[in-house]
């Protein structure tokens, strides 16, 4: 088998999606952000839709394709503000909650979303499905569009979740600050070890199946993506956090990016973007 490696970003991909707050309460507004990457930086538009779990299936929200087509076929630059507002209203009716770069995605949860539920059910909450359609420049067919979805838990939890934060990346033990560039030797192998912020691993309450409260601790793990080179494993298994990365022997790119996504298995996630150059 000679399949493309899942950690190699050789086409438009949605690697992660986060909500802020990570676990909103009814009445909150969640600001959404996606890690949408493309080797050619050719993302034309990222459309965001939302639906509650009860109307989602294995593929996420059922997207109103007519809505998608109407926005993809419209030159928004040519529209007046009123026309844009009218279009936005039409799209919102179809579940659209964002259309980057024109409309940042967000979602305001109804205040009565959990009404009628028991206290325990409200603490457990429900999921909102966020559907992302990343459209590359010149997309000709539906198969050119990268689709992804993510669940946003909405609850009255005793300890609402926060997104974990990667505060640094340690390379062979040396920590890199955010925004710094990593210089490496082609063909060399490096140990990549993301460093989480002190409060990234949270303790939280969980009402177990016996009706007893437990205090649990998160078990985050990391996914690693790049443009060139190879990993010994492209994701870590808790409590491990590091992987080995071997830089390409003959890099095709003068500069490449390594993306590291952290997920806390409760819906919270975040990422680190590392620029790499070669000696």
């Amino acid at each position, binding site marked *: *088998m*000679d*399949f*493309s*490696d*899942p950690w190699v970003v050789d086409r438009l*991909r*949605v690697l*992660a*999606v986060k909500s802020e707050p990570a676990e909103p309460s009814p009445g909150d507004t969640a600001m959404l952000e996606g890690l949408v990457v493309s080797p050619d930086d050719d993302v034309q538009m990222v459309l965001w839709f939302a639906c509650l*779990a009860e109307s989602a299936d*294995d*593929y*996420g929200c059922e997207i109103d394709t007519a809505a998608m087509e109407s926005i993809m076929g419209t030159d928004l630059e040519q529209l007046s503000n009123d026309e844009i507002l009218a279009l936005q209203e039409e799209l919102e009716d179809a579940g659209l909650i964002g259309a980057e770069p024109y409309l940042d995605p967000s979602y305001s949860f109804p205040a009565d979303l959990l009404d009628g539920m028991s206290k325990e059910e409200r603490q*457990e909450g429900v*999921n909102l499905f966020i559907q992302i359609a990343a459209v590359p420049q010149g997309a000709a067919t539906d*198969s050119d569009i*990268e*689709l*992804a*979805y*993510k*669940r946003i*838990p909405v609850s009255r939890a005793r300890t609402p979740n926060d997104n974990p934060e990667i505060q640094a990346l340690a390379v062979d033990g040396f920590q890199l600050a955010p925004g710094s560039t990593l210089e490496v030797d082609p063909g060399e192998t490096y140990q990549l070890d993301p460093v989480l912020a002190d409060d990234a691993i949270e303790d939280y309450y*969980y009402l*177990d*199946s016996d009706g007893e409260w437990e205090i*649990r601790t998160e*078990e985050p*793990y990391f*996914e690693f993506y790049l443009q060139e080179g190879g990993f010994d*494993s*492209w*994701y870590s*298994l*808790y409590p491990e956090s590091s992987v080995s990365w071997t830089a390409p022997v003959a890099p095709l790119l003068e500069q490449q990016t390594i993306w590291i996504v952290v*997920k806390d*298995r*409760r*819906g919270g*996630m975040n990422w680190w973007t590392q620029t790499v150059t070669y000696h």
Partner: protein
Amino acid sequence: MNAFLPAAFFLTRLLLAQDPTGQVPETAAESATQPAPQEQALTPLLREPELLDFFQAPYPDEARSQGIEGTVRLLIEIDETGSVSSVEILEGAGWGFDEAASEAASHFRFSPAEDERGPVPVLIEFEYGFQLAPDEVPADTDNSTDTAALEPVNLDGRLLEMGTRRPLEHFPVLLDDLPEIQTETDSDGCFSFRGLSPGHHELRIVYPGFVALEKELEIQEGERLSLKLWMRNKSYGDDEIVGVYRRDREEVTRYTLDINQVRRVPGTFGDPIRVIQTLPGAARSPFGTGLLIIRGANPEDSAVYVDGIRIPLIYHLGGIVSVLNADLVESVDYLPGAYGVQYGRSMGGVIDVHTKTTYPEQRRLVWSTDILDSGGLVEGRAGKNDGWGFAAAGRRSYIDLFIPLFTGDSGMFIKPRWLDYQLKLDRLDMDAGKLNLFLFGFDDILQVSTPADQAQGTDQDTQGDLATRYGTHRFTLNWERPLGRDLTLRLAPSLGLDIGELGFGSDMNIDTRDWMLEIRAELPWKPSPAFSLTPGIDLIASYYFFDVGFPMDPAYFWEEDPLAEREEWNLEDHGLGLGPDLYLVSELRPLADPERLLITPGLRLNYTALQNGYSALSLDPRISTRWSLLDDAVVKASLGLYHQPPQPFEMYRPDGNVDLGYEVARSATVGWEYESEPALSLQMEIFYKHLEHLLIPNWEITSWDDPFFKDNGVGRVYGMEFLLKREQVDDLYGWLSYTLSRSMRNDDPQGDGYWYPFELDQTHILVLVAGYSLPRDFEVSTKVQYVTGNPTTPYAGGVYDVDQGFYWPYQTAQYDSERLPPYWSVDLRLEKLFTFRRWQMRAYIDALNLLHGENPEYVTYNYDYTESAYVHGLPLIINPGLDFEIRF
């Protein structure tokens, strides 16, 4: 005084068994008063006829007066009662010996020969010897004269069979081609000559079935020459194993193959049970699975028995070889469908393996080694008067070390490891009935890993390799005792343990232990050749224990919320399961010639219960018929109802609330058989099977209160089977098997279900097997196989589930709407038999997938389902092997 050699060459072997070609000699066929029975003769005998009353023939006067001795070779037909029904002279001796021997033999009385159905008519060869008392031998006979007798022995020797070291008794030893200088070997194979003149002599020993022995000798004056001579049997093994693939006589379909041939079919690793996959109705099992796919049935719908006791698997994990040592297999009943009520709890096919019941007088060690495994068998007789036969066998594989070399970069690896053992004791000195004890089992491990570049998620709880361990152990007793002239009791209790362990990653496990008690008892009553009635009980009782552990509550799977908190989930339970099925089967032979028409009606009462409250009851009426329209053609047909209880995991719920009955198959077949003496036979059968109440997972489950399975699936299987077979009457043997079939399923015929092909549906299955015996004990054989590719479901792309790190694939067409490319394979085997004085060795080379190389077995996808590739089966493999056999 007359002397005689009453047991000289009492060749108590069936002619057909003795004849490697399987032919009935023409003279014998003509003389048989019963249509004797070619079919019967092909059935292994459980008991050979024994001479009870010998009748002494009068010595012909003229021969006595001339001092002439002689031996008459007779063909005697013995009927079901042990009486002699006909005598034919195969080789006369003249001088009135022929008439005297023939008349005397007609008064013999034997114990009847028996196979599984009871007494059967047989043909035997018998040599009736006439020998004068010493005082009657004329004084002028050359080497026997009183003068010669006074001479010292100056040539003696011992004659042994090559490879087996068995003393060869009653072999004529001839010197210088002069009949007057002739003697024969005694029971130790010894012979001697007295008073031979010094000088050059030529010794010659010729005996049917053996390579003639000729030797030049120099006798020195005053010296005694002692020889140790070896003769080579032309047909080794024929006296050891008379196994066939066959079906019980009352069954509609009977596929018969010589087990000595099937062990030489390339690509089967010498495993006679694997050869089933070359027969009609049996679909090809994908590499590494060992699935039994018979007439379009799910693998779990077919049942496997060893000596009538059901076991869970017939192939070791990995599916390469069966769980029994090949040298222990005497015969295999392969019943693809339309079988009788003796078999139940299954809707698919049945395989009933029968282990050997005959044991060599001289102990034998067989050891087989190839790239898969190595194992051996030792067998013989022991106890007072050699009253017990024993066989002990064991085997262990090492293919797990080699498989990575073959699979190379195919990504996925499957590593099986198996071992098995068998110990059997048979009481041989019972006057009537039979008794044997059999302990056997196997213990297998199979590991499967998935490479990182194939579709899988990053969820920590779903990481890891799949590891399976499966073991079965059984101790069985087979006891049979006549209760009178027409009534027999057969009792076969068995105790056993089935062990299953399935692990995925580090946190998932399913462990099961099932203590099994199985009892099969029958009381066949046959008051006349035209009628028999057999009531029976087929009881299975189990004490089950299981332990299932998951890192999350199974509710996780139907809630499909990866963000939900997970609790380790464990379920342990134990209890009793019971299936005391009863059956009643009759054989009706209403025509004057009972062999012409056989009608076999039967009724089976099925009952299944678990301690947790599950129970189900059903009734299976079945009827089949075989009608010999002509001497060489048979028309056959069957109708039957088959109920199958749910699998254990399907009928279990913690709350016991399972509202599922039996799965049901309604089967009908019609076909015909034609035999062209002596070599060719042709069989064809058309079948249709309607399936109802098939269990399917309930995908709409939302809580523990919902049923796990629904029983509204239906199916239909129909097709045609064809077998053209050539027996090995000369150097060529082989068969051509073709199956045309379609097996369809519909999970929800009342709702929005649609018909789709069964996952292992194979439209065309064509297998050609041929072998050719070459000079100097070489043999070449080949197997050519063409099979339609299995159905597959196409995917193209998917939606990324960010929380779980994997893509949900898009199904681009209906389930199972596409097929893999056809499977083509050509296997070749070359073997040579080396026969040494004390042992034999069979060396062979199996070349598998000779022409086509790797065949697509599965479709696999990359992480986002945008790329696909075939997972191929084995490439060209050269499998050298050695079989050793030594007598001691």
